[in-house]
């Protein structure tokens, strides 16, 4: 059940009606049942996996808290990691690991005996496994108590708006909200509805339109020239951003309709002024998770190594961010490229600070934003291609020539330009605070109603309604 489909919205409205008609004390159960129905609709076997994760981690969380000794707490932590990472590795990485090991052996014993023929990655697995590990680590560190209420803990993992695409929620944000519901509230309905419409616009109009062009280029690499690759490379970051943040907006908006505030996942990332700034704005729930549970512990443990400790921690953290996306060397290299850029950022921080004082602010900031965008766009070439040689080839062609720009359908290009301009203008206004000019945040209900009516009309006219594809479902 994709959250841009009619079925999803019928399901959402039905759940909302039952939710608000039910007494507050039963609402957690309403949402649990709705989430189970939602996930069963996606695929029944996924439900068994998620219920295994919920029940085992519920018990382990309590056991860690109740353990008297550090040694016992650590044993329970390892048990939880074994279960969670075991499930993740089995479904997401197993075949790739076997294939890679097989490269070093002459016979095909491993491939014949250990390759899983019909393995399917359960949707949302990486998101809820990371969320569960975060919860367990919080208890292990003593920064929060385990959740004793099983229904509340189940809903924390299962809550359907964020189940397939995140945000990767934190216990401190989501758990306290579950069970404290209020009456149907106009503010929540309007804020949630607006976010959903905005998310649909980002996904159906901007992302899916751009994907028509980018897919046409990437599906036939030998036929295209440098100009076309350059345009596809510049459009792809906007596609990924509109795609992922569009789905996230629908998720956050849907949750808001129930009075639940999910964490922010994107904060105008295409206006980041350097790569460190970018990673504080892009997929925040994953980058902050990695920062809290991977980067910080490593850098603290290795603080005697000086700046090499930071380099080491950054490399590990970004390789994990890369590999989170999938079991492919492309993602490992994508992670290493990001880590290298962050190390560069760190090493040149003082120099850039001095430079920024000598150049007018608007010029320095504009160049910084453009350079960061270009860096991200080019690093995504590795991310988008299915094999490394393809990425190298595209970059080689881009550097070695020009050629006539490929335009498949002029209307597609026109919709891409209009959609991207609306999206980037909205982000620009959010970033620089002039909210009264922003169609999404204009004051006065008449202007708002008009702006959103126009947006809905534009989604109907320019949206791609063939179901499309969500890039981040695959992760």
């Amino acid at each position, binding site marked *: 059940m994709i959250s841009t489909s009619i079925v999803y919205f019928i399901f959402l409205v039905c759940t909302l009606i039952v939710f608000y008609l039910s007494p507050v004390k039963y609402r957690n159960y309403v949402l649990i049942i709705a989430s189970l129905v939602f996930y069963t609709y996606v695929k029944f076997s996924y439900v068994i996996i998620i219920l295994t994760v919920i029940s085992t981690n519920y018990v382990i969380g309590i056991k860690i808290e109740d353990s008297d000794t550090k040694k016992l707490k650590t044993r329970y932590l390892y048990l939880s990691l074994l279960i969670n990472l075991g499930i993740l590795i089995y479904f997401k990485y197993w075949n790739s690991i076997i294939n890679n090991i097989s490269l070093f052996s002459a016979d095909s014993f491993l491939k014949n005996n250990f390759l899983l023929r019909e393995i399917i990655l359960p949707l949302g697995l990486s998101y809820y496994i990371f969320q569960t590990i975060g919860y367990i680590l919080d208890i292990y560190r003593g920064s929060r108590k385990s959740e004793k209420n099983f229904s509340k803990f189940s809903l924390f993992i299962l809550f359907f708006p964020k189940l397939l695409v995140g945000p990767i929620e934190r216990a401190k944000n989501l758990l306290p909200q579950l069970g404290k519901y209020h009456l149907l509230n106009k503010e929540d309905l309007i804020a949630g509805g607006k976010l959903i419409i905005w998310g649909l616009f980002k996904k159906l109009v901007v992302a899916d339109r751009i994907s028509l062009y980018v897919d046409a280029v990437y599906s036939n690499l030998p036929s295209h020239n440098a100009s076309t690759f350059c345009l596809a490379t510049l459009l792809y970051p906007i596609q990924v951003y509109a795609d992922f943040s569009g789905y996230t907006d629908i998720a956050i908006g849907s949750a808001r309709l129930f009075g639940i505030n999910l964490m922010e996942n994107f904060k105008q990332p295409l206006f980041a002024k350097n790569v460190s700034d970018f990673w504080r704005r892009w997929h925040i729930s994953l980058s902050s998770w990695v920062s809290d549970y991977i980067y*910080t512990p490593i850098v603290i443990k290795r603080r005697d190594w000086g700046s090499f400790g930071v380099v080491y921690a950054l490399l590990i953290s970004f390789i994990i961010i890369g590999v989170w996306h999938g079991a492919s060397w492309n993602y490992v290299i994508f992670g290493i490229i990001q880590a290298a850029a962050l190390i560069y950022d*760190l090493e040149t921080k003082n120099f850039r600070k001095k430079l920024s004082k000598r150049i007018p602010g608007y010029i320095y900031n504009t160049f910084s934003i453009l350079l960061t965008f270009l860096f991200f766009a080019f690093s995504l070439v590795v991310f988008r291609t299915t094999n490394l040689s393809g990425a190298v080839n595209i970059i080689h062609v881009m550097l070695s020539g020009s050629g006539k720009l490929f335009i498949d359908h002029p209307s597609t290009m026109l919709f891409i330009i209009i959609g991207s301009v609306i999206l980037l203008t909205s982000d620009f206004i959010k970033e620089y605070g002039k909210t009264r000019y922003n169609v999404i945040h204009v004051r006065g209900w008449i202007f708002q109603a008009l702006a959103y009516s126009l947006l809905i009309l534009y989604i109907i006219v320019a949206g791609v309604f063939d179901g499309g594809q969500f890039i981040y479902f695959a992760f």
Partner: protein
Amino acid sequence: MELNAIIKQVNKIFIELFEDESIVLSEKSDTSEVEAWDSLNHIQVITAVEKYFKIRFELNELLNFQNIGDLCRGVQAKLG
């Protein structure tokens, strides 16, 4: 040592580290308040504080510090 005196000293460390005289820390100051202080150079802050006060924090202590107040109370506890 008084908490305020520790905050004052940590403030000096911040000014020196980030070369910014305008930094004024309070108990509630965190990374969102001090522009230059982020997760990348957080460890420089910690090592500078440990070096100055001649103390060593445990991993778990450091992971649970949320703001300057927590850090300075941590220093206070170590100094006895």
